[in-house]
């Protein structure tokens, strides 16, 4: 009497759906041939990690795919090395879920220039996220207002001086010089201006 059973749009799917309820209520004692065949075909079509990957419908053409040799692997390189946990890597992000991925590992080998390039040119992508994560690990901070990355330089002063250390700030100038430049003396660090990544 349910309206769904009267709805032609649900036919004939509903009958097949009901059939599955029967096998749930009285499972076959031994697997019938047809079910074994269905299981076999499911095994053959088993989805793999590429099927499970995050969908990418629209890819901004960042760098036109330059022709690579057919021998290049078309999947990300698997940096599967279980190098012992480096004690120097004690940043709390070193234990996060990205630290053991190949991309995460590859980023840790890039120099600042490359990380800045990825950050400013791969907007909204996973790569941009990883570049920002790596920059943060290296002590850089992102300013939400002027969208620059800043770095606080602490210089130990020799003993005897009235101060023990001198602090200076640098920022990466992505708009003009594409260089890290010293901040002017008038620079004031305001925490609320910086992103908490």
């Amino acid at each position: 009497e349910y309206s769904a059973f009267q709805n032609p749009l649900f036919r004939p799917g509903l009958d097949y759906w009901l059939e599955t309820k029967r096998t749930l209520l009285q499972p076959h004692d031994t697997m019938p041939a047809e079910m074994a065949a269905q299981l076999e075909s499911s095994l053959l079509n088993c989805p793999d990690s590429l099927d499970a990957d995050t969908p990418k419908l629209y890819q901004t053409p960042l760098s036109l795919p330059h022709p690579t040799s057919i021998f290049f692997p078309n999947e990300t390189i698997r940096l599967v090395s279980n190098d012992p946990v480096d004690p120097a890597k004690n940043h709390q992000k070193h234990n996060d879920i990205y630290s053991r991925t190949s991309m995460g590992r590859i980023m840790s080998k890039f120099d600042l220039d490359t990380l800045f390039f990825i950050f400013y040119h791969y907007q909204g992508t996973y790569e941009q996220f990883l570049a920002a994560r790596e920059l943060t690990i290296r002590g850089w901070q992102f300013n939400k207002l002027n969208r620059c990355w800043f770095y606080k330089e602490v210089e130990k002063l020799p003993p005897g001086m009235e101060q023990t250390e001198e602090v200076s700030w640098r920022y990466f100038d992505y708009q003009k010089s594409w260089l890290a430049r010293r901040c002017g003396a008038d620079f004031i660090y305001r925490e609320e201006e910086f992103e908490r990544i």
Partner: protein
Amino acid sequence: TSQEKMFLVFTEWVKLLQRVPDDDIKVTVFIRQMMDKGVVNSTENVIQFTKAAIELSVGSFKESDPTSEVFIAADAFSKLIVKLLVLQTFTDVSRSEYLRLMLSVITMVFSEDQGMVGNSFNERPYFRLISSLLCQWEEASAHSFMKIQDQQYRNELVEFSPDFYNIIASFLHAFQPIAYPGFSFAWITLLSHRMFLPKMLRLPGKAGWSKLVLLFTDLLKFMAQYTKRSDVPDAVSVVYKGALRVFLAVANDAPGFLVENHYELLNNLPPVYMQLRNVILSAIPKNMVLPNPYDAELRIGDVESCQHVPNVYYDPVRDLKNLKKPVDNYLRIPSASLSRVVSTSLFKPGSQKDTGIGYDNVSVDTKLINAIVLHVGIEAALEKDKTTATAIFNTKSSYYTLLASMLHDGNTEVRFHVVQAIANQLRYPNAHTHWFNYVLNNFFLSEDWGNNTAEIQEIIVRTLLERVVTNKPHCWGIVVTFTELLRSSECSIMTLPFVKTVPEIEHIIKHL
């Protein structure tokens, strides 16, 4: 026809998403137009549109060249579902009902495709649709829907998100392998999906645990149903390998889930999967350090964490049914008549399939026995907290005598399953492990069994032995208990008849 119109709209949607990023205003305008022009403004139209979209998504997968992007339509469809859930205001129907409606339509198409005999059903497009739906929802809901400006709206969506995952879980429950064998491997991959399983494990207030236990028991039931001692179909053994890896990953990431749900999971796990059983029972709370179980100086009562009562997520008392009263009455005021009621209720009409080591079916109600044993343990631990330790650590206590009477009045099969149920509670150091260790030790040394003594001792040794000869992991409580028995001065295992008659066993025991 109206169906062709629906096909056209969906095709336009797919094209649009390939040309602009999904946060482009044109995408929102498209959804707006769908609503204004009546494409999704009624239940009937939502059904028609969803049917068209799933048919096109699956169709385009089947027709595409396998090396091309075969999932574009499925990905676009999952994106559309998320957009419709996020961008629409829901007044006459709720978001949950709306999502259920679309998933129900998908289920009908899926059931026909999977169920048609001689059909070349392929699980992958359906897998991809749900996988992408999970990925897109994760992206939309990240950081409490940070991308949604309107605060009130965000709160609504944040509140809906646990329902989203539980609705997906309930449809996965419908798609379980026993019901849809052609979807089995996709199903296991979805159950362990990185955008699903961690979420269900960590929803606030364990809001995902009930459905998650249901899904894991669906998996175990499927394995139980088609695992025979004599033969295990290849596909089922592949299912087992996948299940083992998933359980190991859960034990690593969220051991608390296994710690609190061991009772229900074991109720559905065929005992023949001894190692998987040990994986589940060896889970220990995060950051707990176990004292060395082989340490001769170890006194289980001195281990601090043995004072803590472990949390059992699903209360076994719910499985006692009409035995709850007799059991609880007996625990309060023991009487022979009550214990007889319990002992005679343990049998099940006919025999049940239950693939164990050395047997294929059982004529006792193993679930009921598991429930009684764990319930008594839970009550004993509560009693100890209320009164004193001696109230339960004595062989005259009703908790102890009820289990003893089940052994005394039971037959071999009952004894075996009662001892198994006790052994399942010998886990990491906690109040249950502590008490059941006491019970098993006293069962082993007791003089009250008359001429059943040898049999009961053999059952105890066999139960412990089969859990330690299996490849690791081994349960801390099992090792401690077995070590104590091996060292027991009051009764040397080596002299027991059943050890001496089987040289291999004698050798193993001597080695241990």
